[in-house]
């Protein structure tokens, strides 16, 4: 039976007794019997059943697997809220420099001055972008940064002898926010949005009381719209003594244009894997640094990277400061995802102030252009914008008319796009928009790519008018077609069974 090149076997299924890739270095010390070093009762009887394969097989296996992935280097990836912008290739080169890549995290600070200076400089730059001076690079991802924000808020209130119990978050908030709040020991209270897609100020006023610890917000919101009432929001929140937290997922719209700190936010988190080009890696790694105001600074995680000028003409030194009595403590081991810092730092140094502003200008330009182009292409009839306003770096369409009139859903539209060689936008988020489609082109896409995408959407709608079944049964040309997610959840098979 002939096996195709794309046979879909797992690495375990390729395993054959006796094959190997690893060659152990020679034993150059006395060959003491293992029983003398590790008594038999402490040892396992059978080794872990890892695959037995040669290097050529491993390489071929993972190469073939990689070809079953769509990726950003290959095509358009307009995932709303994810900022899939180009990953500059310089960054892999600098991150691989041994001085960065092979540095042990517990190396003495005086022997890691390059690393600590890089972190310090990155902190300064992020603080400048946010408009808040005090930065911790420790959190590992956006959601980790959010947890830090909640814990910082808790520490701030407790230090004032206050036991607040609630955190406010808009209906449109990213899923991470409510989960984070609960983990921080608070209760989530939802705030409604108004007809323009902004936070409903009346609802906020009604719900903001002395029991509220924090309002967690992003600006622009997950609808891609700027919160025009942000200063009033800040006034209401600060008026009851609560903190204002900024989810930095949408920072790509405002870099160099305006700053969360100036809007009144106390805590800002960044997603270095969004606006700052850390490659997404198929789902990580990332980093979620935070910037905070003066009043929150004492509670920042431990350790903090600090700069010391001893004033004797030797120049500044950089150190890890553990002496932080009011700190919330550690959120993770060591100093954070340094490899990610190297890449984001290279990015900021490449762009500078002017480049960062240009990023946001073109991100917003591209999004508005695509929105306009979709209208011209006749798409708006079936996929109207959820809110009839200028958008920022992303916009949300509703597939409700499409579902009603053409009988295909946003999900079907997305699956059919796969056959056209583009990654679909984010689907079914935010939840407040029916059959939502959230589109974020980013600034690194060409006008031609955007034009092409509008054409693709128009074409799929044309197809659906003729025969809705095409989209409903799509995709056809991908390595696998629609998968049965229900049975995967009902009877989960999450590892290979081995004999």
């Amino acid at each position: 039976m002939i096996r195709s090149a794309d046979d879909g076997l797992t690495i375990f299924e390729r395993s054959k007794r006796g094959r190997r890739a690893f060659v152990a270095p020679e034993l150059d010390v006395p060959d003491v019997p293992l029983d003398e070093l590790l008594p038999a009762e402490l040892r396992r009887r059978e080794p872990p059943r890892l695959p037995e394969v040669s290097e050529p097989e491993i390489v071929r296996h993972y190469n073939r697997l990689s070809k079953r992935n769509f990726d950003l280097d290959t095509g358009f990836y307009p995932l709303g809220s994810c900022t899939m912008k180009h990953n500059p290739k310089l960054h892999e080169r600098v991150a691989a420099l041994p001085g960065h890549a092979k540095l042990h995290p517990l190396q003495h600070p005086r022997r890691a001055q390059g690393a600590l200076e890089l972190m310090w400089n990155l902190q300064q730059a992020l603080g400048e972008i946010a408009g808040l001076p005090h930065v911790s690079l420790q959190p590992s991802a956006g959601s980790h940064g959010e947890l830090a924000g909640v814990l910082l808020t808790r520490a701030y209130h407790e230090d004032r002898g206050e036991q607040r119990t609630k955190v406010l978050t808009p209906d449109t908030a990213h899923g991470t926010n409510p989960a984070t709040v609960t983990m921080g020991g608070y209760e989530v209270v939802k705030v409604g949005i108004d007809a323009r897609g902004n936070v409903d100020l009346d609802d906020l006023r009604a719900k903001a009381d002395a029991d509220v610890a924090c309002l967690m917000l992003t600006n622009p919101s997950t609808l891609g719209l700027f919160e025009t009432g942000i200063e009033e929001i800040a006034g209401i929140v600060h008026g009851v003594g609560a903190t204002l937290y900024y989810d930095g997922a949408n920072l790509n719209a405002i870099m160099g244009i305006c700053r969360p700190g100036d809007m009144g936010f106390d805590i800002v988190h960044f997603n270095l894997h969004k606006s700052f080009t850390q490659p997404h890696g198929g789902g990580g790694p990332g980093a979620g640094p935070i910037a905070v105001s003066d009043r929150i600074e004492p509670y920042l995680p431990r350790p903090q990277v600090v700069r010391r000028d001893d004033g004797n003409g030797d120049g500044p030194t950089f150190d890890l400061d553990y002496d932080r009595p009011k700190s919330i403590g550690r959120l993770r081991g060591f100093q954070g995802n340094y490899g990610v810092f190297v890449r984001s730092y290279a990015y900021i140094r490449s762009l500078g102030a002017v480049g960062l502003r240009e990023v946001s200008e073109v991100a917003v330009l591209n999004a508005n252009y695509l929105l306009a182009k979709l209208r011209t292409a006749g798409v708006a009839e079936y996929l109207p914008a959820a809110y009839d306003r200028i958008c920022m770096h992303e916009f949300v369409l509703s597939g409700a008319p499409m579902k009603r009139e053409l009988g295909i859903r946003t999900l079907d539209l997305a699956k059919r796009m796969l056959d056209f060689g583009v990654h679909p936008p984010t689907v079914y988020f935010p939840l407040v928009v029916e059959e939502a489609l959230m589109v974020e082109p980013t600034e690194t896409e060409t006008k031609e790519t955007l034009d092409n995408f509008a054409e693709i959407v128009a074409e799929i709608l044309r197809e659906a008018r003729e025969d809705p079944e095409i989209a409903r049964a799509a995709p056809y040309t991908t390595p696998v077609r629609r998968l049965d997610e229900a049975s995967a959840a009902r009877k989960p098979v999450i590892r290979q069974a081995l004999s």
Partner: protein
Amino acid sequence: MSSYVSATAADRREMLAEIGVSSIEDLFADIPARLRLDAADGALRLDRGRSEQEVYEELRALAARNISTEDELSFLGAGMYDHYVPALIDSIIGRSEFLTPYTPYQPEISQGGLQAMFEYQTAISELTGLPVSNASVYEGPSAVGAAGYVAKLTNGRRRFVVSRGVHPHSRETLLTLSRGYGMEVVEAPLRGGATVLPELDGDVSAIVVQQPNFLGAVEDLTELASAARDAGALTICACDPLPLALLKSPGECGVDLAVGEGQTLGNRLDFGGPSFGFFTATEALLRRMPGRIAGETRDVDGKRGFVLTLQTREQHIRREKATSNICTSQALNALAGVIYLSWLGKRGIVELTELMVKRTAYARARLTAIPGVALLHERPVVREFALALDAPAGRVIDRCLAHGVNPGYALGTDYPEHEDGLLVAITERRTRADIDRLVDVLGAAVAAERANVGAPA
């Protein structure tokens, strides 16, 4: 300066016309004027952008001011280890198809990443002996924190008993996180290098131990887990993955949640991150698992495929009832992990770990033959061990550093009771000759300090 943007002046004119505004400024009209930064002076106070070449030179200069494991002979461990990362890992994870996609929300075009997760979950499950693994979490200490949260959600009890042998960063992280969800944390001491559990009552949600522990000692996991079970508590064990090639698996010992730092498996040191944390559990805890999980299924044509499953436990659907708030996993680092485990293979992982055990034994024997150097405990060890120096550890270390040898971690930093303790790590990169050099340099340093021969060079 490049912002990787392609929009030319002509492009922008056309695009603005299509939108129906006269300038980009108009697109920011919703932002109150008071908040807007002035473009004229470059707005943000940052250095001007530079060419790729200039940025490269700056990053190289910064790298040159770091003493990496290529610049000194290092015996530093304490949670991250200087292993040899095989070349095939770099070439595979550098592929665009693995490096640049997002989390697999459209499984039809993400089978590469999803299948790799499934293979990773299988490999990690084999190591820990527990059937349920997720696709990775951020790193070791936060895995311990997440495991604590699972225990609390499972039995609702209010106290953790945490061994002093658990990595200080893990203990601190657990403390920070558990304050958020209202847990009391109590410490179990070490005696002779092994954990001594206090009497456990019905308020204990979980015990937290480490294998081998921070002092390098192999613990009697079976006994510890048994004591926990008798009290109705869960056992959380933070593990160093390579020793699991030889040690009785946490699953076999009765552990409920086996988690740990994955850097050792095919990942770089990177000054502490990114790496990945592995997270495994018993079948009973399947629906409380945090993070992403890949599951096997079939497509409409009956072809095998993989999807993210049990997502309702995750943040984006279950929202305030989520078992964690993890959105990003560490997919690329976990991929490096499964490639590494495949490269080692069933025999190779045993050979590698046995080599480390024997070299560790050699190092331990030679070092304790030095006057003024003694074992801090006599428990069996695998690849790391603790010494007690009869001299100020900080000054001894400084003397070694001046000779290009980093002898290990000063235990006194986290364990005041071991003020002059030294934690020495052996990997397959440390040869006999390297160990002999450590013995010479450390021996000379200890002798000099004991004789109080003044400040280090």
